[in-house]
Protein backbone atom coordinates (compact mmCIF):
# COMPACT_ATOMS: atom_id res chain seq x y z
CA UNK A 1 0.00 0.00 0.00
CA UNK A 2 1.08 3.51 -0.56
CA UNK A 3 2.48 6.29 1.48
CA UNK A 4 -0.32 7.20 3.92
CA UNK A 5 0.30 10.93 3.58
CA UNK A 6 -1.07 10.80 0.03
CA UNK A 7 -4.36 9.37 1.18
CA UNK A 8 -6.19 12.50 2.36
CA UNK A 9 -5.16 14.40 -0.75
CA UNK A 10 -6.42 11.58 -2.91
CA UNK A 11 -9.75 11.47 -1.11
CA UNK A 12 -10.07 15.21 -1.50
CA UNK A 13 -9.56 14.91 -5.23
CA UNK A 14 -12.21 12.21 -5.46
CA UNK A 15 -14.72 14.25 -3.50
CA UNK A 16 -13.96 17.29 -5.66
CA UNK A 17 -14.50 15.28 -8.84
CA UNK A 18 -17.74 13.84 -7.46
CA UNK A 19 -19.09 17.29 -6.62
CA UNK A 20 -18.02 18.55 -10.03
CA UNK A 21 -19.84 15.68 -11.74
CA UNK A 22 -23.03 16.48 -9.82
CA UNK A 23 -23.19 20.25 -10.32
CA UNK A 24 -21.66 20.15 -13.80
CA UNK A 25 -24.86 20.15 -15.91
CA UNK A 26 -26.46 22.81 -13.72
CA UNK A 27 -23.84 25.42 -14.50
CA UNK A 28 -22.69 24.63 -18.01
CA UNK A 29 -24.71 24.76 -21.25
CA UNK A 30 -26.39 21.75 -22.86
CA UNK A 31 -23.52 21.06 -25.21
CA UNK A 32 -21.25 20.23 -22.31
CA UNK A 33 -23.83 17.92 -20.77
CA UNK A 34 -23.96 16.02 -24.03
CA UNK A 35 -20.17 15.85 -24.07
CA UNK A 36 -20.12 14.55 -20.50
CA UNK A 37 -22.79 11.94 -21.27
CA UNK A 38 -20.69 10.67 -24.16
CA UNK A 39 -17.62 10.50 -21.92
CA UNK A 40 -19.53 8.63 -19.21
CA UNK A 41 -20.98 6.07 -21.61
CA UNK A 42 -17.67 5.47 -23.31
CA UNK A 43 -15.99 5.19 -19.90
CA UNK A 44 -18.21 2.27 -18.98
CA UNK A 45 -17.59 0.73 -22.39
CA UNK A 46 -13.81 1.13 -22.00
CA UNK A 47 -13.89 -0.20 -18.42
CA UNK A 48 -15.64 -3.31 -19.69
CA UNK A 49 -12.97 -3.77 -22.35
CA UNK A 50 -10.21 -3.28 -19.84
CA UNK A 51 -11.61 -5.87 -17.45
CA UNK A 52 -10.58 -8.29 -20.19
CA UNK A 53 -7.41 -6.66 -21.48
CA UNK A 54 -5.91 -4.93 -18.44
CA UNK A 55 -6.84 -7.57 -15.91
CA UNK A 56 -7.21 -10.85 -17.79
CA UNK A 57 -4.80 -10.17 -20.68
CA UNK A 58 -7.41 -10.85 -23.38
CA UNK A 59 -7.22 -8.28 -26.16
CA UNK A 60 -10.64 -8.14 -27.78
CA UNK A 61 -11.06 -6.41 -31.11
CA UNK A 62 -14.78 -7.09 -31.11
CA UNK A 63 -16.19 -5.44 -28.02
CA UNK A 64 -18.61 -3.49 -30.22
CA UNK A 65 -20.65 -6.62 -30.78
CA UNK A 66 -21.83 -6.53 -27.17
CA UNK A 67 -22.17 -2.77 -27.20
CA UNK A 68 -24.43 -3.19 -30.22
CA UNK A 69 -26.29 -6.23 -28.94
CA UNK A 70 -27.11 -4.33 -25.74
CA UNK A 71 -28.26 -1.29 -27.67
CA UNK A 72 -30.37 -3.26 -30.14
CA UNK A 73 -31.93 -5.39 -27.40
CA UNK A 74 -32.91 -2.35 -25.34
CA UNK A 75 -34.15 -0.58 -28.45
CA UNK A 76 -36.20 -3.52 -29.70
CA UNK A 77 -37.58 -4.12 -26.23
CA UNK A 78 -38.70 -0.52 -25.84
CA UNK A 79 -40.14 -0.45 -29.33
CA UNK A 80 -42.04 -3.73 -29.42
CA UNK A 81 -42.51 -5.11 -25.93
CA UNK A 82 -42.74 -2.55 -23.18
CA UNK A 83 -41.72 1.00 -22.54
CA UNK A 84 -40.50 0.18 -19.06
CA UNK A 85 -36.99 1.46 -18.60
CA UNK A 86 -36.12 -0.98 -15.84
CA UNK A 87 -37.31 -4.00 -17.81
CA UNK A 88 -35.53 -2.78 -20.95
CA UNK A 89 -32.29 -2.47 -19.05
CA UNK A 90 -32.77 -5.90 -17.58
CA UNK A 91 -33.40 -7.35 -21.04
CA UNK A 92 -30.34 -5.56 -22.35
CA UNK A 93 -27.89 -6.84 -19.74
CA UNK A 94 -29.33 -10.35 -19.94
CA UNK A 95 -29.01 -10.48 -23.72
CA UNK A 96 -25.49 -9.10 -23.82
CA UNK A 97 -24.41 -11.38 -20.98
CA UNK A 98 -25.82 -14.47 -22.69
CA UNK A 99 -24.37 -13.48 -26.05
CA UNK A 100 -20.99 -13.01 -24.37
CA UNK A 101 -21.23 -16.41 -22.69
CA UNK A 102 -21.93 -18.10 -26.02
CA UNK A 103 -19.26 -16.26 -27.99
CA UNK A 104 -16.82 -16.28 -25.11
CA UNK A 105 -17.21 -20.03 -24.80
CA UNK A 106 -15.47 -20.37 -28.16
CA UNK A 107 -13.04 -17.46 -27.81
CA UNK A 108 -11.51 -18.03 -24.37
CA UNK A 109 -10.34 -21.49 -25.34
CA UNK A 110 -7.64 -19.77 -27.35
CA UNK A 111 -4.97 -17.28 -26.52
CA UNK A 112 -3.36 -14.25 -28.03
CA UNK A 113 -3.49 -14.12 -31.81
CA UNK A 114 -6.26 -16.66 -32.20
CA UNK A 115 -8.35 -15.00 -29.53
CA UNK A 116 -7.94 -11.62 -31.19
CA UNK A 117 -8.83 -12.90 -34.64
CA UNK A 118 -11.82 -14.81 -33.31
CA UNK A 119 -13.21 -11.70 -31.64
CA UNK A 120 -12.79 -9.85 -34.94
CA UNK A 121 -14.53 -12.64 -36.84
CA UNK A 122 -17.46 -12.90 -34.44
CA UNK A 123 -17.81 -9.16 -34.45
CA UNK A 124 -17.96 -9.15 -38.26
CA UNK A 125 -20.49 -11.95 -38.14
CA UNK A 126 -22.75 -10.03 -35.76
CA UNK A 127 -22.30 -6.84 -37.78
CA UNK A 128 -23.25 -8.65 -40.97
CA UNK A 129 -26.36 -10.08 -39.32
CA UNK A 130 -27.31 -6.67 -37.93
CA UNK A 131 -26.78 -5.18 -41.36
CA UNK A 132 -28.64 -7.75 -43.40
CA UNK A 133 -31.49 -8.63 -41.07
CA UNK A 134 -33.08 -5.32 -41.89
CA UNK A 135 -36.63 -6.35 -41.00
CA UNK A 136 -35.57 -6.59 -37.39
CA UNK A 137 -32.74 -4.10 -37.03
CA UNK A 138 -33.57 -1.54 -39.69
CA UNK A 139 -30.33 -2.36 -41.52
CA UNK A 140 -28.40 0.65 -42.78
CA UNK A 141 -30.96 3.11 -41.43
CA UNK A 142 -30.60 1.80 -37.90
CA UNK A 143 -33.40 1.05 -35.49
CA UNK A 144 -35.64 4.11 -35.41
CA UNK A 145 -38.88 5.03 -33.73
CA UNK A 146 -37.83 3.91 -30.26
CA UNK A 147 -40.01 5.52 -27.63
CA UNK A 148 -37.77 7.17 -25.04
CA UNK A 149 -38.97 5.83 -21.69
CA UNK A 150 -40.35 8.44 -19.31
CA UNK A 151 -40.35 6.47 -16.10
CA UNK A 152 -38.66 3.55 -14.47
CA UNK A 153 -41.27 2.03 -12.14
CA UNK A 154 -44.63 3.63 -11.53
CA UNK A 155 -43.99 4.47 -7.88
CA UNK A 156 -40.79 6.39 -8.41
CA UNK A 157 -40.55 10.02 -9.51
CA UNK A 158 -40.69 10.46 -13.25
CA UNK A 159 -37.46 9.96 -15.10
CA UNK A 160 -37.71 11.85 -18.34
CA UNK A 161 -34.73 10.91 -20.44
CA UNK A 162 -35.62 13.43 -23.10
CA UNK A 163 -34.54 16.06 -20.65
CA UNK A 164 -30.78 16.26 -21.01
CA UNK A 165 -30.14 16.96 -17.34
CA UNK A 166 -32.19 13.97 -16.23
CA UNK A 167 -30.46 11.90 -18.88
CA UNK A 168 -27.11 13.09 -17.61
CA UNK A 169 -27.87 12.16 -14.00
CA UNK A 170 -29.35 8.85 -15.01
CA UNK A 171 -26.23 8.02 -17.03
CA UNK A 172 -23.98 9.21 -14.22
CA UNK A 173 -25.72 6.93 -11.72
CA UNK A 174 -25.72 3.88 -13.99
CA UNK A 175 -22.08 4.37 -15.01
CA UNK A 176 -20.98 5.03 -11.43
CA UNK A 177 -22.74 1.91 -10.22
CA UNK A 178 -21.28 -0.09 -13.09
CA UNK A 179 -17.80 1.19 -12.31
CA UNK A 180 -18.29 0.38 -8.65
CA UNK A 181 -19.32 -3.18 -9.43
CA UNK A 182 -16.34 -3.58 -11.76
CA UNK A 183 -14.07 -2.15 -9.10
CA UNK A 184 -15.36 -4.67 -6.57
CA UNK A 185 -14.87 -7.43 -9.13
CA UNK A 186 -11.24 -6.57 -9.88
CA UNK A 187 -10.40 -6.31 -6.20
CA UNK A 188 -12.07 -9.60 -5.35
CA UNK A 189 -10.45 -13.01 -5.33
CA UNK A 190 -11.82 -13.44 -8.85
CA UNK A 191 -10.02 -10.31 -9.99
CA UNK A 192 -6.75 -11.52 -8.53
CA UNK A 193 -7.12 -14.85 -10.29
CA UNK A 194 -7.59 -12.95 -13.57
CA UNK A 195 -4.33 -11.10 -12.97
CA UNK A 196 -2.58 -14.37 -12.17
CA UNK A 197 -3.84 -15.81 -15.47
CA UNK A 198 -2.76 -12.69 -17.32
CA UNK A 199 0.75 -12.85 -15.92
CA UNK A 200 1.26 -16.57 -16.30
CA UNK A 201 -1.50 -18.73 -17.65
CA UNK A 202 0.40 -21.98 -17.29
CA UNK A 203 1.30 -21.35 -13.71
CA UNK A 204 -2.31 -20.49 -12.91
CA UNK A 205 -3.38 -23.75 -14.49
CA UNK A 206 -0.84 -25.69 -12.45
CA UNK A 207 -2.16 -24.03 -9.33
CA UNK A 208 -5.39 -25.82 -10.07
CA UNK A 209 -7.31 -22.75 -11.17
CA UNK A 210 -9.96 -23.26 -13.78
CA UNK A 211 -8.54 -20.78 -16.26
CA UNK A 212 -11.22 -21.10 -18.90
CA UNK A 213 -14.08 -20.64 -16.47
CA UNK A 214 -12.52 -17.50 -15.02
CA UNK A 215 -11.79 -16.07 -18.44
CA UNK A 216 -15.27 -16.92 -19.67
CA UNK A 217 -16.85 -15.18 -16.70
CA UNK A 218 -14.73 -12.08 -17.21
CA UNK A 219 -15.60 -12.14 -20.93
CA UNK A 220 -19.30 -12.38 -20.02
CA UNK A 221 -19.15 -9.61 -17.41
CA UNK A 222 -17.32 -7.41 -19.88
CA UNK A 223 -20.02 -8.17 -22.47
CA UNK A 224 -22.73 -7.29 -19.98
CA UNK A 225 -21.29 -3.87 -19.18
CA UNK A 226 -20.51 -3.16 -22.81
CA UNK A 227 -24.15 -3.92 -23.58
CA UNK A 228 -25.32 -1.65 -20.79
CA UNK A 229 -23.14 1.15 -22.15
CA UNK A 230 -24.62 0.58 -25.61
CA UNK A 231 -28.16 0.85 -24.29
CA UNK A 232 -27.35 4.12 -22.53
CA UNK A 233 -26.57 5.58 -25.92
CA UNK A 234 -30.18 5.28 -27.15
CA UNK A 235 -31.56 8.57 -25.78
CA UNK A 236 -28.35 10.24 -27.00
CA UNK A 237 -28.92 9.32 -30.62
CA UNK A 238 -32.67 8.79 -30.44
CA UNK A 239 -32.10 5.52 -32.28
CA UNK A 240 -29.75 2.57 -32.52
CA UNK A 241 -27.44 3.08 -35.46
CA UNK A 242 -25.81 0.20 -37.27
CA UNK A 243 -22.52 1.90 -36.44
CA UNK A 244 -22.82 0.66 -32.82
CA UNK A 245 -21.90 -2.80 -34.12
CA UNK A 246 -19.16 -1.65 -36.43
CA UNK A 247 -15.49 -2.51 -36.10
CA UNK A 248 -14.59 1.13 -35.56
CA UNK A 249 -16.70 1.02 -32.38
CA UNK A 250 -14.52 -1.81 -31.13
CA UNK A 251 -11.52 0.40 -31.71
CA UNK A 252 -12.78 3.14 -29.38
CA UNK A 253 -12.40 1.33 -26.04
CA UNK A 254 -9.01 -0.01 -27.16
CA UNK A 255 -7.70 3.46 -27.92
CA UNK A 256 -9.23 4.86 -24.73
CA UNK A 257 -7.79 2.17 -22.47
CA UNK A 258 -4.31 2.41 -23.97
CA UNK A 259 -4.44 6.19 -23.83
CA UNK A 260 -5.44 6.22 -20.17
CA UNK A 261 -3.43 3.21 -19.04
CA UNK A 262 -4.59 -0.40 -18.95
CA UNK A 263 -2.94 -1.26 -15.66
CA UNK A 264 -4.98 1.28 -13.71
CA UNK A 265 -8.61 0.79 -12.86
CA UNK A 266 -9.59 4.34 -13.81
CA UNK A 267 -7.19 4.46 -16.77
CA UNK A 268 -9.97 3.77 -19.31
CA UNK A 269 -12.11 6.52 -17.74
CA UNK A 270 -9.31 9.06 -18.06
CA UNK A 271 -8.67 7.71 -21.55
CA UNK A 272 -12.25 8.10 -22.62
CA UNK A 273 -12.37 11.69 -21.38
CA UNK A 274 -9.11 12.43 -23.24
CA UNK A 275 -10.36 10.65 -26.35
CA UNK A 276 -13.61 12.59 -26.56
CA UNK A 277 -12.00 15.92 -25.72
CA UNK A 278 -9.15 15.40 -28.20
CA UNK A 279 -11.62 14.28 -30.87
CA UNK A 280 -13.79 17.31 -30.24
CA UNK A 281 -10.82 19.66 -30.38
CA UNK A 282 -9.33 18.17 -33.53
CA UNK A 283 -12.68 18.14 -35.30
CA UNK A 284 -12.79 21.90 -34.93
CA UNK A 285 -9.89 22.44 -37.27
CA UNK A 286 -9.18 19.21 -39.12
CA UNK A 287 -11.40 17.04 -41.23
CA UNK A 288 -9.64 13.77 -40.55
CA UNK A 289 -9.40 13.55 -36.79
CA UNK A 290 -8.65 9.83 -36.71
CA UNK A 291 -5.31 10.54 -38.39
CA UNK A 292 -4.21 12.57 -35.37
CA UNK A 293 -5.88 10.28 -32.89
CA UNK A 294 -4.08 7.37 -34.53
CA UNK A 295 -0.77 9.21 -34.28
CA UNK A 296 -1.39 9.92 -30.59
CA UNK A 297 -2.29 6.27 -30.12
CA UNK A 298 0.91 5.09 -31.84
CA UNK A 299 2.92 7.49 -29.69
CA UNK A 300 1.26 6.19 -26.52
CA UNK A 301 1.92 2.56 -27.44
CA UNK A 302 5.57 3.36 -28.15
CA UNK A 303 6.47 5.75 -25.38
CA UNK A 304 3.87 5.56 -22.62
CA UNK A 305 3.28 1.89 -21.84
CA UNK A 306 1.37 2.89 -18.71
CA UNK A 307 -0.76 5.42 -20.54
CA UNK A 308 -1.39 8.92 -19.28
CA UNK A 309 -2.30 7.72 -15.77
CA UNK A 310 0.89 5.70 -15.61
CA UNK A 311 2.91 8.66 -16.82
CA UNK A 312 1.38 11.05 -14.30
CA UNK A 313 1.85 8.41 -11.61
CA UNK A 314 5.51 8.01 -12.52
CA UNK A 315 6.02 11.73 -11.95
CA UNK A 316 5.22 11.01 -8.34
CA UNK A 317 3.03 14.08 -7.91
CA UNK A 318 -0.20 12.31 -7.69
CA UNK A 319 0.29 8.74 -6.75
CA UNK A 320 -3.03 6.97 -6.36
CA UNK A 321 -3.38 4.07 -3.97
CA UNK A 322 -4.49 1.78 -6.71
CA UNK A 323 -1.65 2.72 -9.00
CA UNK A 324 0.87 1.71 -6.36
CA UNK A 325 -0.68 -1.69 -5.80
CA UNK A 326 -0.69 -2.26 -9.51
CA UNK A 327 2.90 -1.22 -9.90
CA UNK A 328 3.95 -3.64 -7.22
CA UNK A 329 2.16 -6.45 -8.97
CA UNK A 330 3.57 -5.55 -12.36
Amino acid at each position, binding site marked *: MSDPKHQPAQKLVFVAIAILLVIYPLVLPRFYSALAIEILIMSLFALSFNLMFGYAGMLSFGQAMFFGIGAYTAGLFLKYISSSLALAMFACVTASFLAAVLIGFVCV*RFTRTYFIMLTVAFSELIYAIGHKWASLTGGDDGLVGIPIPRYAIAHLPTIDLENIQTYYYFTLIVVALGALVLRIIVNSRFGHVLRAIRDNRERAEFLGLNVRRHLLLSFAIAGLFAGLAGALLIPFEGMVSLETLHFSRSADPIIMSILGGTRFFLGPVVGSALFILIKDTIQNFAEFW*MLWMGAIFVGT*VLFLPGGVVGFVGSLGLFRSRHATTEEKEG
Partner: protein
Amino acid sequence: MIFIQFLNGLSTAMLLFLLASGLTLIFGVLRVINFAHGSLYMLGAYFTYSIATLSGNYWLSLVVAPLCVAVAAAIIELLFLRRLYAREHEFQLLLLFGFVLVLDDVVKACWGTALKLVPKPAALDGSVQILGRTFPEYTVLIIVLGPLVALGLWYALARTRIGKQIVAASLDRDAANALGMNVPFLYTTVFVFGAWLGGLGGAVAAPLRAASPGMGMEIVIMSFAVVIIGGLGSIWGAFLGSILIGEVLAFGTLVVPKFVVVLPFAFMILVFLWRPQGLFGKGGV
Protein backbone atom coordinates in the same frame (compact mmCIF):
# COMPACT_ATOMS: atom_id res chain seq x y z
CA MET B 1 -22.83 -21.29 -65.09
CA ILE B 2 -21.46 -23.31 -62.21
CA PHE B 3 -18.03 -23.42 -63.79
CA ILE B 4 -18.04 -19.68 -64.38
CA GLN B 5 -19.05 -19.14 -60.78
CA PHE B 6 -16.21 -21.43 -59.78
CA LEU B 7 -13.80 -19.23 -61.76
CA ASN B 8 -15.21 -16.12 -60.13
CA GLY B 9 -14.63 -17.71 -56.77
CA LEU B 10 -11.11 -18.55 -57.83
CA SER B 11 -10.35 -14.94 -58.75
CA THR B 12 -11.57 -13.75 -55.33
CA ALA B 13 -9.52 -16.55 -53.82
CA MET B 14 -6.29 -15.56 -55.52
CA LEU B 15 -6.73 -11.96 -54.50
CA LEU B 16 -7.26 -13.11 -50.93
CA PHE B 17 -4.24 -15.33 -51.24
CA LEU B 18 -1.98 -12.40 -52.09
CA LEU B 19 -2.96 -10.87 -48.75
CA ALA B 20 -3.19 -14.02 -46.71
CA SER B 21 0.21 -15.29 -47.84
CA GLY B 22 1.89 -12.09 -46.64
CA LEU B 23 -0.08 -12.20 -43.42
CA THR B 24 0.84 -15.80 -42.72
CA LEU B 25 4.48 -15.30 -43.71
CA ILE B 26 4.84 -12.35 -41.35
CA PHE B 27 3.11 -14.26 -38.59
CA GLY B 28 5.33 -17.26 -39.14
CA VAL B 29 8.46 -15.28 -38.34
CA LEU B 30 7.42 -12.25 -36.31
CA ARG B 31 4.63 -14.05 -34.43
CA VAL B 32 2.41 -11.05 -34.84
CA ILE B 33 -0.68 -10.61 -36.95
CA ASN B 34 -0.14 -7.64 -39.20
CA PHE B 35 -3.31 -5.69 -38.61
CA ALA B 36 -2.05 -3.02 -40.98
CA HIS B 37 -1.92 -5.49 -43.85
CA GLY B 38 -5.24 -4.31 -45.22
CA SER B 39 -4.04 -0.73 -45.05
CA LEU B 40 -0.93 -1.65 -47.03
CA TYR B 41 -3.16 -3.37 -49.58
CA MET B 42 -5.22 -0.19 -49.76
CA LEU B 43 -2.06 1.90 -50.20
CA GLY B 44 -1.07 -0.43 -53.03
CA ALA B 45 -4.37 0.24 -54.77
CA TYR B 46 -4.09 4.01 -54.36
CA PHE B 47 -0.46 4.10 -55.50
CA THR B 48 -1.54 2.10 -58.52
CA TYR B 49 -4.28 4.61 -59.22
CA SER B 50 -1.89 7.56 -59.03
CA ILE B 51 0.93 5.98 -61.01
CA ALA B 52 -1.42 4.58 -63.64
CA THR B 53 -3.20 7.89 -64.15
CA LEU B 54 0.03 9.92 -64.17
CA SER B 55 2.00 7.65 -66.47
CA GLY B 56 -0.90 6.16 -68.35
CA ASN B 57 0.76 2.79 -68.01
CA TYR B 58 -0.89 0.21 -65.77
CA TRP B 59 1.99 -2.25 -66.05
CA LEU B 60 4.42 0.32 -64.73
CA SER B 61 2.16 0.92 -61.71
CA LEU B 62 1.84 -2.81 -61.14
CA VAL B 63 5.61 -2.93 -60.65
CA VAL B 64 6.18 0.37 -58.86
CA ALA B 65 3.15 0.55 -56.52
CA PRO B 66 3.99 -2.62 -54.54
CA LEU B 67 7.56 -1.36 -54.20
CA CYS B 68 6.28 1.90 -52.73
CA VAL B 69 4.20 -0.14 -50.28
CA ALA B 70 7.33 -2.11 -49.39
CA VAL B 71 9.14 1.15 -48.61
CA ALA B 72 6.25 2.24 -46.36
CA ALA B 73 6.41 -1.12 -44.59
CA ALA B 74 10.17 -0.80 -44.14
CA ILE B 75 9.62 2.56 -42.44
CA ILE B 76 6.98 1.04 -40.15
CA GLU B 77 9.20 -1.89 -39.22
CA LEU B 78 12.52 -0.10 -38.82
CA LEU B 79 11.33 3.03 -37.06
CA PHE B 80 8.39 1.76 -35.00
CA LEU B 81 7.71 -1.96 -34.78
CA ARG B 82 11.33 -2.80 -34.03
CA ARG B 83 11.18 -0.89 -30.75
CA LEU B 84 8.47 -3.20 -29.45
CA TYR B 85 9.92 -6.67 -30.05
CA ALA B 86 10.95 -6.85 -26.41
CA ARG B 87 7.41 -6.12 -25.22
CA GLU B 88 4.31 -8.35 -25.29
CA HIS B 89 2.96 -9.32 -28.68
CA GLU B 90 -0.20 -7.39 -27.91
CA PHE B 91 1.67 -4.12 -28.08
CA GLN B 92 3.14 -4.89 -31.49
CA LEU B 93 -0.34 -5.66 -32.66
CA LEU B 94 -1.72 -2.49 -31.11
CA LEU B 95 0.99 -0.47 -32.82
CA LEU B 96 0.10 -1.95 -36.19
CA PHE B 97 -3.53 -1.25 -35.40
CA GLY B 98 -2.56 2.38 -34.78
CA PHE B 99 -1.21 2.47 -38.31
CA VAL B 100 -4.57 1.24 -39.58
CA LEU B 101 -6.19 4.30 -38.02
CA VAL B 102 -3.53 6.63 -39.39
CA LEU B 103 -3.29 5.19 -42.91
CA ASP B 104 -7.07 5.10 -43.41
CA ASP B 105 -7.23 8.83 -42.86
CA VAL B 106 -3.99 9.53 -44.72
CA VAL B 107 -5.63 7.97 -47.76
CA LYS B 108 -8.76 10.05 -47.29
CA ALA B 109 -6.68 13.21 -46.90
CA CYS B 110 -4.53 12.50 -49.96
CA TRP B 111 -7.02 10.98 -52.39
CA GLY B 112 -10.40 12.01 -51.01
CA THR B 113 -13.22 9.75 -49.97
CA ALA B 114 -14.62 9.00 -53.44
CA LEU B 115 -13.93 5.72 -55.21
CA LYS B 116 -10.91 5.85 -57.52
CA LEU B 117 -11.39 3.81 -60.64
CA VAL B 118 -8.33 2.38 -62.32
CA PRO B 119 -8.95 1.38 -65.96
CA LYS B 120 -8.02 -2.16 -66.84
CA PRO B 121 -4.89 -2.41 -68.97
CA ALA B 122 -5.81 -2.23 -72.64
CA ALA B 123 -4.15 -5.55 -73.42
CA LEU B 124 -6.42 -7.38 -70.99
CA ASP B 125 -9.61 -5.41 -71.40
CA GLY B 126 -11.26 -8.02 -73.56
CA SER B 127 -12.77 -11.31 -72.67
CA VAL B 128 -12.19 -14.93 -73.49
CA GLN B 129 -14.62 -17.71 -74.30
CA ILE B 130 -14.75 -20.44 -71.69
CA LEU B 131 -17.22 -23.26 -72.29
CA GLY B 132 -19.26 -21.00 -74.49
CA ARG B 133 -19.39 -18.15 -71.99
CA THR B 134 -17.45 -14.93 -72.00
CA PHE B 135 -15.06 -14.36 -69.16
CA PRO B 136 -12.97 -11.19 -68.61
CA GLU B 137 -9.31 -11.59 -69.48
CA TYR B 138 -8.21 -9.58 -66.50
CA THR B 139 -9.83 -12.05 -64.11
CA VAL B 140 -7.93 -14.82 -65.86
CA LEU B 141 -4.71 -12.95 -65.11
CA ILE B 142 -5.54 -12.92 -61.40
CA ILE B 143 -6.37 -16.63 -61.41
CA VAL B 144 -3.02 -17.37 -63.05
CA LEU B 145 -1.09 -14.99 -60.82
CA GLY B 146 -2.13 -16.69 -57.57
CA PRO B 147 -0.59 -20.12 -58.18
CA LEU B 148 2.51 -18.44 -59.65
CA VAL B 149 2.98 -16.47 -56.43
CA ALA B 150 2.39 -19.62 -54.38
CA LEU B 151 5.00 -21.53 -56.37
CA GLY B 152 7.42 -18.63 -56.18
CA LEU B 153 6.99 -18.48 -52.42
CA TRP B 154 7.44 -22.18 -52.07
CA TYR B 155 10.60 -22.03 -54.17
CA ALA B 156 11.96 -19.04 -52.25
CA LEU B 157 11.34 -20.65 -48.87
CA ALA B 158 12.45 -24.17 -49.72
CA ARG B 159 15.30 -23.60 -52.14
CA THR B 160 17.01 -20.29 -51.49
CA ARG B 161 19.42 -19.48 -48.73
CA ILE B 162 17.46 -16.59 -47.29
CA GLY B 163 14.27 -18.62 -47.54
CA LYS B 164 15.79 -21.40 -45.50
CA GLN B 165 16.99 -18.88 -42.96
CA ILE B 166 13.46 -17.49 -42.73
CA VAL B 167 12.04 -20.96 -42.15
CA ALA B 168 14.74 -21.59 -39.54
CA ALA B 169 13.96 -18.33 -37.76
CA SER B 170 10.26 -19.14 -37.76
CA LEU B 171 10.95 -22.51 -36.17
CA ASP B 172 13.36 -21.34 -33.52
CA ARG B 173 14.43 -17.75 -33.33
CA ASP B 174 16.99 -18.20 -30.61
CA ALA B 175 18.72 -21.09 -32.30
CA ALA B 176 18.79 -19.18 -35.58
CA ASN B 177 20.32 -16.24 -33.80
CA ALA B 178 22.87 -18.44 -32.07
CA LEU B 179 23.85 -19.97 -35.41
CA GLY B 180 24.88 -16.54 -36.57
CA MET B 181 21.90 -15.60 -38.71
CA ASN B 182 21.03 -11.95 -38.76
CA VAL B 183 17.59 -12.33 -37.20
CA PRO B 184 16.66 -8.60 -37.09
CA PHE B 185 17.48 -8.42 -40.80
CA LEU B 186 15.28 -11.46 -41.43
CA TYR B 187 12.46 -9.77 -39.54
CA THR B 188 12.68 -6.67 -41.67
CA THR B 189 12.95 -8.73 -44.85
CA VAL B 190 9.91 -10.80 -44.03
CA PHE B 191 7.81 -7.84 -42.96
CA VAL B 192 8.71 -5.85 -46.05
CA PHE B 193 8.25 -8.80 -48.37
CA GLY B 194 4.88 -9.66 -46.82
CA ALA B 195 3.84 -6.04 -47.24
CA TRP B 196 5.01 -6.15 -50.84
CA LEU B 197 2.67 -9.07 -51.42
CA GLY B 198 -0.16 -7.10 -49.85
CA GLY B 199 0.70 -4.12 -52.03
CA LEU B 200 0.73 -6.37 -55.07
CA GLY B 201 -2.74 -7.53 -54.05
CA GLY B 202 -3.88 -3.92 -53.94
CA ALA B 203 -2.32 -3.15 -57.31
CA VAL B 204 -4.01 -6.15 -58.90
CA ALA B 205 -7.33 -5.40 -57.20
CA ALA B 206 -7.42 -1.73 -58.21
CA PRO B 207 -8.77 -2.22 -61.76
CA LEU B 208 -11.22 -4.83 -60.54
CA ARG B 209 -12.68 -3.25 -57.43
CA ALA B 210 -11.58 0.41 -57.50
CA ALA B 211 -9.68 2.00 -54.64
CA SER B 212 -11.74 3.14 -51.65
CA PRO B 213 -10.88 4.08 -48.06
CA GLY B 214 -12.71 1.12 -46.50
CA MET B 215 -11.26 -1.53 -48.79
CA GLY B 216 -8.41 -2.50 -46.46
CA MET B 217 -10.32 -3.38 -43.34
CA GLU B 218 -12.86 -5.38 -45.29
CA ILE B 219 -10.32 -7.64 -46.94
CA VAL B 220 -7.93 -7.99 -44.02
CA ILE B 221 -10.73 -9.38 -41.86
CA MET B 222 -11.55 -11.82 -44.65
CA SER B 223 -7.86 -12.77 -44.78
CA PHE B 224 -7.96 -13.46 -41.04
CA ALA B 225 -10.62 -16.05 -41.79
CA VAL B 226 -8.40 -17.48 -44.52
CA VAL B 227 -5.32 -17.86 -42.36
CA ILE B 228 -7.29 -19.30 -39.46
CA ILE B 229 -8.79 -21.90 -41.78
CA GLY B 230 -5.46 -22.69 -43.39
CA GLY B 231 -3.40 -22.59 -40.21
CA LEU B 232 -1.31 -19.59 -39.20
CA GLY B 233 2.16 -19.64 -40.68
CA SER B 234 1.42 -22.07 -43.49
CA ILE B 235 1.67 -20.85 -47.09
CA TRP B 236 -0.19 -23.84 -48.54
CA GLY B 237 -2.75 -23.46 -45.77
CA ALA B 238 -3.30 -19.89 -46.87
CA PHE B 239 -3.60 -21.10 -50.48
CA LEU B 240 -6.22 -23.70 -49.66
CA GLY B 241 -7.99 -21.38 -47.21
CA SER B 242 -8.23 -18.69 -49.89
CA ILE B 243 -9.78 -21.11 -52.36
CA LEU B 244 -12.27 -22.33 -49.77
CA ILE B 245 -13.32 -18.82 -48.77
CA GLY B 246 -13.40 -17.65 -52.39
CA GLU B 247 -15.66 -20.51 -53.38
CA VAL B 248 -17.84 -20.18 -50.28
CA LEU B 249 -18.39 -16.55 -51.29
CA ALA B 250 -18.99 -17.37 -54.96
CA PHE B 251 -21.47 -20.17 -54.40
CA GLY B 252 -22.97 -18.53 -51.33
CA THR B 253 -24.05 -15.69 -53.60
CA LEU B 254 -26.12 -18.18 -55.58
CA VAL B 255 -27.75 -19.80 -52.57
CA VAL B 256 -28.19 -17.03 -49.99
CA PRO B 257 -27.37 -13.77 -51.80
CA LYS B 258 -28.45 -11.65 -48.85
CA PHE B 259 -26.39 -13.27 -46.15
CA VAL B 260 -23.31 -14.10 -48.19
CA VAL B 261 -21.01 -11.91 -46.06
CA VAL B 262 -21.91 -14.02 -43.03
CA LEU B 263 -20.72 -17.24 -44.64
CA PRO B 264 -16.91 -16.91 -44.53
CA PHE B 265 -16.99 -16.20 -40.79
CA ALA B 266 -19.51 -18.91 -40.03
CA PHE B 267 -17.40 -21.29 -42.11
CA MET B 268 -14.26 -20.17 -40.35
CA ILE B 269 -15.76 -20.70 -36.90
CA LEU B 270 -16.89 -24.20 -37.90
CA VAL B 271 -13.45 -25.15 -39.21
CA PHE B 272 -11.90 -23.63 -36.13
CA LEU B 273 -14.06 -25.64 -33.77
CA TRP B 274 -13.26 -28.79 -35.67
CA ARG B 275 -9.54 -28.14 -36.13
CA PRO B 276 -8.28 -25.18 -34.10
CA GLN B 277 -4.78 -25.31 -35.56
CA GLY B 278 -6.20 -24.94 -39.06
CA LEU B 279 -6.04 -27.37 -41.95
CA PHE B 280 -2.25 -27.10 -42.34
CA GLY B 281 -1.33 -25.84 -38.88
CA LYS B 282 0.97 -27.70 -36.56
CA GLY B 283 -0.79 -27.19 -33.25
CA GLY B 284 0.40 -24.84 -30.56
CA VAL B 285 -2.69 -22.66 -30.54
